[in-house]
């Protein structure tokens, strides 16, 4: 149900109709949604920021949540600066977004050109309340995504586009949590969903390991939990995975292969294991809950509120959930003339079902034949000894490029000598049974871990 443009986040909390004890739990602080709507953690009266362009650059996720609630409908623009993004881009982002001031919990003088507003530890003691919780201007929400040049891309949303996929309605049995940071699209969706439905939300600190986070989620009785397939592969490698007993597990941000869906189903037999497609630009497109990778063909044509099509091999999405535009004078259009966002994700049809092949910009060209790294990873990940894998290209004097794989084993101790060599052969043999010869990795390299970006996706080096 689309939301009314005249509601703000703060007024949504009162409208949720939930008991007043529902908490937002951060690693550094916690408060009820009502406390967050009533008090401010800014060290100046929020009304001073009316009409401003605010660069929200706290490291604390809880502080960012509190500031978002205070400033939505008051500030002209809020720029959500993710905590893992290098601070060297602050001035660039501030310039493009015309930021007037920076809200930060870090030492001052990060950016000499802007007024700095500090945050206090908790909204509870504040006397600096916003005088009017209604909409004074429709705030532009600016999300940052990784750009190919190293500089972030700035994507403009409104509260309406960000909340268009959210069904209001309080469910007392839910406690939400997510591996994602709320300054990124996936995490922001869960933050807004929890706020609008008045449901508790447990935030993950960027400094917490997967094990520490799962232990914290268990203490708070989390029932609905979201992350990327890579987040979940790491989580399942931890004994702490058994501490939680979720009812609902959702994956997004990367292709959910059959191995991770099966492994989650085995670990959490009581839970619905869902995977969704969403991106900062395209918004939430669809959710699949049948336990299988890919999506039924009718999901493409019969998802309420979202129009989708495959054009020149990639998924295109049109809905009221998509972003408006990229910011910056030299940025390319975010949508085509008909309003469709090209997701850049290659979709292939087989036997009445669509499957994600991979990112169009990640294709490896082996002697003129295309290989999607994700397709090869999906096969390797089905091997019983494999926890996760990253397929990349190596320059080849003969083929132009060849496929190689870095593999994390479930039992790292077997990564030595003769056992490792036998296992490499076994994984390669498994790949040869499933993949065309040019897609089989030339080498398998066992590694202790694979890097995840702040978005929770595996870090890929595009050749």
């Amino acid at each position, binding site marked *: 149900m689309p939301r009314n443009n005249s509601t703000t986040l703060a007024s949504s909390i009162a409208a949720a109709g939930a008991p007043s004890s529902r908490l937002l739990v951060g690693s550094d602080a916690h408060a009820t949604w009502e406390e967050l709507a009533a008090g401010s953690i800014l060290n100046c009266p929020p009304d001073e920021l009316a009409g401003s362009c605010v660069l929200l650059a706290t490291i604390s996720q809880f502080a960012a949540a509190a500031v978002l609630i205070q400033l939505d409908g008051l500030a002209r623009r809020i720029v959500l600066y993710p905590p893992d993004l290098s601070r060297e881009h602050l001035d660039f982002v501030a310039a493009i977004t015309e930021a007037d001031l920076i809200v930060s919990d870090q030492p001052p003088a990060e950016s000499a050109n802007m007024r700095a507003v500090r945050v206090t530890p908790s909204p509870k003691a504040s006397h600096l309340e916003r005088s009017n919780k209604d909409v004074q201007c429709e705030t532009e929400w600016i999300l940052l995504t990784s750009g190919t040049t190293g500089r972030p891309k700035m994507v403009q949303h409104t509260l309406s586009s960000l909340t268009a996929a959210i069904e209001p309605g309080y469910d007392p049995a839910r406690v939400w949590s997510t591996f994602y940071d709320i300054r990124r699209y996936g995490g922001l969706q869960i933050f807004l969903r929890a706020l609008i439905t008045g449901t508790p939300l447990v935030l993950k600190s960027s400094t917490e390991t997967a094990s520490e986070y799962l232990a914290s989620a268990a203490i708070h009785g989390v029932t609905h939990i979201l992350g990327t397939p890579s987040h979940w592969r790491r989580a399942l490698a931890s004994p702490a995975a058994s501490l939680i007993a979720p009812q609902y597990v959702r994956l997004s941000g990367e292709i959910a292969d059959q191995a991770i869906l099966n492994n989650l189903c085995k670990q959490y037999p009581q839970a619905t294991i869902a995977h969704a497609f969403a991106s900062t630009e395209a918004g939430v497109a669809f959710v699949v809950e049948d336990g299988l990778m890919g999506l039924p063909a009718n999901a493409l044509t019969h998802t309420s509120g979202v129009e989708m099509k495959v054009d020149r091999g990639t998924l295109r999405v049109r809905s009221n959930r998509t972003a408006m535009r990229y910011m910056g004078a030299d940025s390319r259009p975010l949508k085509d003339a008909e309003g469709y966002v090209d997701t850049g994700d290659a979709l292939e049809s087989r036997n009445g079902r669509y499957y994600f092949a991979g990112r169009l910009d990640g294709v490896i060209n*082996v*002697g003129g034949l295309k290989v999607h790294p994700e397709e090869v990873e999906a096969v390797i990940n089905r091997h019983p000894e494999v926890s996760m894998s990253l397929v990349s290209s190596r320059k*080849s004097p003969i*083929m132009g490029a060849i496929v190689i794989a870095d593999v994390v084993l479930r039992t790292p101790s077997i990564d030595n000598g003769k056992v490792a060599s036998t296992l490499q052969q076994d994984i390669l043999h498994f790949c040869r049974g499933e993949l065309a*010869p040019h897609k089989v990795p*030339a080498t398998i390299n066992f590694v202790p871990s694979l890097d995840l970006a702040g978005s929770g996706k595996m870090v890929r080096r595009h050749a």
Partner: protein
Amino acid sequence: MNVRSEVIAQFKQVAQEQDKDLAPLKDDLALIDSGLDSLCFAVVVARLENSLGVDPFSTDEDVRFPVTFGDFIGFYEHAAQ
């Protein structure tokens, strides 16, 4: 590590993996007649880079791929020095 024995081992391993009939590996064997295709050679070169630590074809843009098996071994022996 003995370069010659490592090269021979990789030729045999890749031929077996790719289900190719490998000709007897004599020094005057033309690589084009070895039974391996170009994907096989690409895999052999990648594996040898891992085991020997050198890729003689990546060091010089103008390098020409060897013609015989003996030339191939010579490339690696030279690069490994």
